[in-house]
């Protein structure tokens, strides 16, 4: 295999044609960061408009395009690809494989993304504007009343789905077929486990999303009536199909984040993860339950009482495996030799804030109470606690944790800690008050609001600007590390870190594990 032993090709073709899991992981990570900035810019416009009551900066129609694109770009452009990037980088290193199982497909699943988002963003300049029907694109808003750009939107969703499915197939094939000898399933690091389960979820529900947009396409252009009552269809059917995808989707977002903190917390507690087996089973249980709770997003559409009750109890049941995880992380820290480097700070931030988000989720799961909370800012606060303080904080922790391994240089710890504290304060200032305005009756997705919400909204906007600005510090820190960080060649960058990725040289060579590592059968999971 002569051609396997040279380094990367030179120039742009290295990136265009690469099949190397580390290169592809890097591209995913940079791309998702770019999308994070773009989606963040949309959020800044939203918060600037909401800084004061009254119409300030933008037209209501444009405001709606901003909320829609913000959600779509953050979910499909920032969070999901960032975790795929992390999977590409880390899964082969963690299971002792030389690369992903299907390297060429890997290249494709990345490269179809940038043009798709370019296309989606370009709809802003189209006649009629970008999609303005919310990231949940309920029919008939997204069919009968949609702007012409909806067709491009549908096409983008198809391509994104395809990319996710290809990425997931690759991850499943890698984990199932490429583990080093002796790396049994119950020895895999938890990040690999959570991604394996996530990938199965993706293969199961991305086609459902594709089905939903296909029906929209047919309703709009080919005269069918899936979602149109006039022709015998039903708009509520759209919501069922969307949330049958949508609820598993939120677990697709959070499970890899669970995996990340399950790697980081033990490292900085200098103790093995508490309750490894129960973590694996809890993850599987959450994945299973995620298929039978979707209608908790639809309590107010007029379901029969039996339906409301079923979905209410099923939703509450999810709190059990989720609680198991939270207790396991806390028990891991219990009596550990804790230190608080930046990755650990972000992980602890995750732990606290995600738990708050879980509790508001439980409040929302109470069907009769949800009639008050539904479509209010309370829901906005809930899902930002689980998606930003959950998924994004854990992703940030992951970057700080593995960056020294990737580039052989240490980031600036003081700057990292500053980034954490500014993020933590900014995030809470932005989203905690939204609980209050939501309970007091402020609806989501509106460009103007009643006067009594003014103070809390101004706080929210200031917090959002602070959180947004702190990401510039993050970007600066990462670039400074890559360019001129203090070199390190310790294989184990963190003294408490466990796992195969810490046995290869630092920085991680272009090719690793071309001969499989030896795994001590007595040694437990990492």
């Amino acid at each position, binding site marked *: *295999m002569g051609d396997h032993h040279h380094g990367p090709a030179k120039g742009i073709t290295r990136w265009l044609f690469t099949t190397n899991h580390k290169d592809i992981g890097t591209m995913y990570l940079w791309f998702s960061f770019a999308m994070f900035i773009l989606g963040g810019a949309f959020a800044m416009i939203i918060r600037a408009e909401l800084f004061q009551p009254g119409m300030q900066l933008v037209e209501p129609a444009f405001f709606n395009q901003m909320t829609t694109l913000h959600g779509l770009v953050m979910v499909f452009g920032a969070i999901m690809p960032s975790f795929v990037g992390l999977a590409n980088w880390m899964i082969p290193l963690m299971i002792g494989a*030389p690369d992903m*199982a*299907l390297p060429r497909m890997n290249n494709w699943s990345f490269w179809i993304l940038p043009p798709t988002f370019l296309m989606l963003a370009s709809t802003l300049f189209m006649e009629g504007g970008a999609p303005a029907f919310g990231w949940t694109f309920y029919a008939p808003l997204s069919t009968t009343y949609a702007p012409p750009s909806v067709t491009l939107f549908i096409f983008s969703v198809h391509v994104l789905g395809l990319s996710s*499915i290809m990425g*997931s*197939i690759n991850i*499943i*094939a890698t984990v*199932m*077929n*490429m583990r080093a000898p002796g790396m049994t399933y119950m020895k895999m690091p938890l990040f690999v486990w959570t991604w394996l389960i996530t990938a199965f979820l993706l*293969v*199961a*529900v*991305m*086609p*459902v999303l*594709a*089905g*939903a947009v296909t*029906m929209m396409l047919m309703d709009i252009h080919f*005269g*069918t*009536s*899936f979602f149109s*009552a*006039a*022709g*015998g269809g*039903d708009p*509520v*059917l759209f919501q*069922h*199909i969307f949330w*049958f995808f949508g609820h598993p989707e939120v677990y697709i977002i959070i499970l890899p984040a669970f995996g990340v903190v399950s790697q980081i917390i033990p490292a900085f507690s200098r103790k093995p993860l508490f309750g490894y087996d129960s973590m694996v089973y809890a993850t599987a249980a959450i994945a299973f339950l995620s298929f039978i709770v979707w209608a908790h997003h639809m309590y107010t559409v*007029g*379901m*029969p009482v039996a*339906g409301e009750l079923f979905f209410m109890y099923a939703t509450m049941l999810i709190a059990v495996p989720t609680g198991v995880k939270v207790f396991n992380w806390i028990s891991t820290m219990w009596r550990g030799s804790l230190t608080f480097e930046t990755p650990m700070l972000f992980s602890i931030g995750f732990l606290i804030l995600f738990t708050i988000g879980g509790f508001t989720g439980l409040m929302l799961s109470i069907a009769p109470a949800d009639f008050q909370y539904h479509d209010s800012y309370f829901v906005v606060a809930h899902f930002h606690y689980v998606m930003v303080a959950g998924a994004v904080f854990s992703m940030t922790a992951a970057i700080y944790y593995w960056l020294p391994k990737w580039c052989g240089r240490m980031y600036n710890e003081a700057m990292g800690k500053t980034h954490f504290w500014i993020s933590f304060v900014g995030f809470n200032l932005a989203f905690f008050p939204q609980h209050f305005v939501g309970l007091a009756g402020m609806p989501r997705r509106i460009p103007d609001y009643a006067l009594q919400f003014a103070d809390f909204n101004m706080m929210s906007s200031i917090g959002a600007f602070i959180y947004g600005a702190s990401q510039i510090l993050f970007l600066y820190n990462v670039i400074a590390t890559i360019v001129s960080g203090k070199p390190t060649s310790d294989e184990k960058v963190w003294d408490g870190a466990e796992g195969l990725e810490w046995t290869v040289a630092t920085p991680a060579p272009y090719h690793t594990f*071309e*001969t*499989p590592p030896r795994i001590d059968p007595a040694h437990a999971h990492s």
Partner: protein
Amino acid sequence: MIRISENANVDTVIKLVTVAIGMFAFVFVVMVPLYDVLCDALGINGKTSGEAYSSVQAGVDDSREITIQFVATNNEGMPWDFGPSVTVMKVNPGAVNDTVFHARNPLPEAMVAQAIPSVSPARAAEYFHKTECFCFNQQPLDGESSAEMPLQFIVDMDLPRDIRTITLSYTIFDVTEMAGGVAVR
């Protein structure tokens, strides 16, 4: 060096692609029909049957009277005058009742309309039988003309006793463009 067999990967890919295609098909061949079947069978969403009721009730229950309210709504942009001739009726379960809705097309050109029924409380939908309804078919109307549209219905003898009022609502849609195309209820 290559340590895994290519076959194992091909095998995994084939299985997973099958799952993905299967789930895509699942949406169309299971979820959509199942939703309609469930809604019809359970009367969820207040959907009533799209076909004429043909069985005969065992008798007439004179012991109670059910109030039937009729509501008519025009979907956005639908110019017809459309409404019930009487807005409230008192009926006995088991009895056959007749009423008419009137419709007028004020525009000069011919149009086709489709009325979509919904029953509230939704629980009552499965006990509300229509033996004849203008909503079973699309309704064409020449320009500037009117029509009386008949409705004949039976309230089931088994209607739960706690239900005393049933509201039957029709929303009328302009389907001139899609007329003759898709099957409607």
